[in-house]
């Protein structure tokens, strides 16, 4: 286990893409201390901002308010990153494996364009969770993101595969231009959910205000719901699927694209 404690709050955002399990597993304590971070445009050593304990491990634990530390766990493919405090932007961006757990809030572009692995945020997350970067056609392509609190705008923008679970209320434009994958909204969302979606599934457990270009296409209990519920139960969250409890209103769209996406809204009996 490698423990990093923030000893000094950066004056401007600190870009720390070297703090990933893939990098640190090969480094001794001295090498970790000498690794390069970008403080604004200046290169600084890790030990200028962090107290470093441990070496040669793919389990990293970070302590402190890291809301101005960006690109943590970038492109990681193994190991664990545990953050006890808030995390900054681009946490776990483009990751392909491993696990990130944050006991605090996360910033924008959490898991942006990720391909695999698991992210769990115990607090809130910022905007563009699991989204595509500007100019990119495809966002998240695999893995799962669990956020216990609220999420910001454009959650799952252009995502193609994978799972996003929002425990709190989501903001506008959930699943914007979505191409596949699943988004589960436990507390619903603000307006324009599923705008311009091509494919994929958005499930909401409370009523949603939908775009006028979505069409109602029946109430049913999809067979995949109990398969998904089984998988979600293993990951620690529940999904109702039984006919005796209620059914899902299915809306399809977005006809502006025209797309074959679906929005399922749970209606308990």
């Amino acid at each position, binding site marked *: 286990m490698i423990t990093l404690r923030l000893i000094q709050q950066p004056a*401007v955002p600190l870009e720390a893409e070297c703090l990933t399990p893939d990098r640190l597993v090969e480094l001794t304590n001295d090498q970790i201390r000498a690794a390069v971070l*970008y403080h604004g445009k200046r*290169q600084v050593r890790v030990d200028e901002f962090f107290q470093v304990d441990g070496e040669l491990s793919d389990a990293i634990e970070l302590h402190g308010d890291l809301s*101005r530390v960006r690109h943590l766990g970038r492109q990681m493919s193994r190991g664990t990153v545990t953050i006890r405090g808030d995390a900054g932007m681009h946490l776990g961006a483009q990751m392909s494996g491993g696990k990130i757990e944050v006991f605090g809030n996360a910033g924008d572009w959490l898991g942006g364009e990720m391909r695999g692995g698991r992210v769990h945020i115990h607090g809130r997350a910022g905007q563009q969770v699991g989204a595509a970067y500007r100019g990119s056609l495809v966002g998240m392509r695999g893995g799962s993101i669990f956020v216990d609190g609220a999420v910001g705008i454009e959650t799952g923008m252009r995502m193609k595969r994978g799972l996003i679970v929002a425990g709190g209320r989501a903001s506008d434009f959930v699943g*914007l231009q979505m191409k596949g994958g699943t988004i589960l909204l436990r507390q619903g969302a603000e307006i324009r959910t599923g*705008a311009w979606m091509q494919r994929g599934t958005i499930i909401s457990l409370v009523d949603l205000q939908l775009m006028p*270009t979505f069409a109602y296409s029946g109430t049913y209990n999809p067979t995949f719901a109990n398969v998904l519920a089984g998988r979600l139960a293993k990951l620690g969250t529940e999904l109702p699927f039984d006919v005796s409890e209620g059914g899902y209103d299915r809306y399809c769209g*977005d006809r*502006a694209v*025209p797309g074959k996406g679906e929005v399922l809204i749970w209606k308990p009996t």
Partner: protein
Amino acid sequence: MQKSRFLPRGRKDRTMVLVDIRETKSVKAADIFLQVRPGKDFELLTILRAMIKDQPISDAEVAETGVSIEALQDLVARMKAAKFGAMFFGMGLSMTRGKHMNSAALLTLAAEMNAFTKFVAMPMRGHGNVTGADVIMRWQTGYPFGISFNRGYPRYNPGEFSTVDVLVRGDTDCVFVIGADPGATMPQPAIDHLARVPTIVLDPHVTHTSRLAKVHITTAPAGISAPGTAYRMDEIPLPLRPALKSSYPTDEEVTRRIKEAIQAKPDWMVEGPQRLETQV
């Protein structure tokens, strides 16, 4: 309005459609006026995108936008029948809820209309040489705005590097303002940050930002006593010849002298003492 071979009757051969949340003075100049309910621009544009593709849209679905389905069907027919359509949009679209996605909806509609006929979309610019800033940034870096150079190469990410977001989050420890007045238009947290950090303003006048700034340098007004190139809204560069003489230096001269002064300091170039190995 100009008469031409294909539009011999000038204005009478052209159709102007005005979309706004209330009747403005421009209604008199327009042939058709569509009153959209506030905050429903994105919905209306998305419905239009569906309608140009002949997707079934019902009256009830259109009702929430405040425009009738007949009016929209007429609009779509006119748009498809036009030889050359142009859409203009302004702050009413880009600064209401949905922000950049409202503009994106209009731009996507214009792009998709090109499956039927020639269509363009153009933002209506506000004060100053905004288009010029966009154009220059675009050919220098490949991106129009929201660019960070801190790694030595341009990185584009609006929301992370755009001015208002950087200031609201307080990500900078110095601000350099040329020919703009963020102190008058930006949200309160951004203004507080401008007052907190050293802010340097280059402007011919004393602005709201100058009052927040640590340093204000009065410069010669561009186009009146300083030469240069301004870009018209449709990206046509117009050379400006000064009519008057000013005792103040131009923006260009001040910026160049600041750059020379910074270059003389040791901690400057990426290849030089900036790097870690040369710092330690």
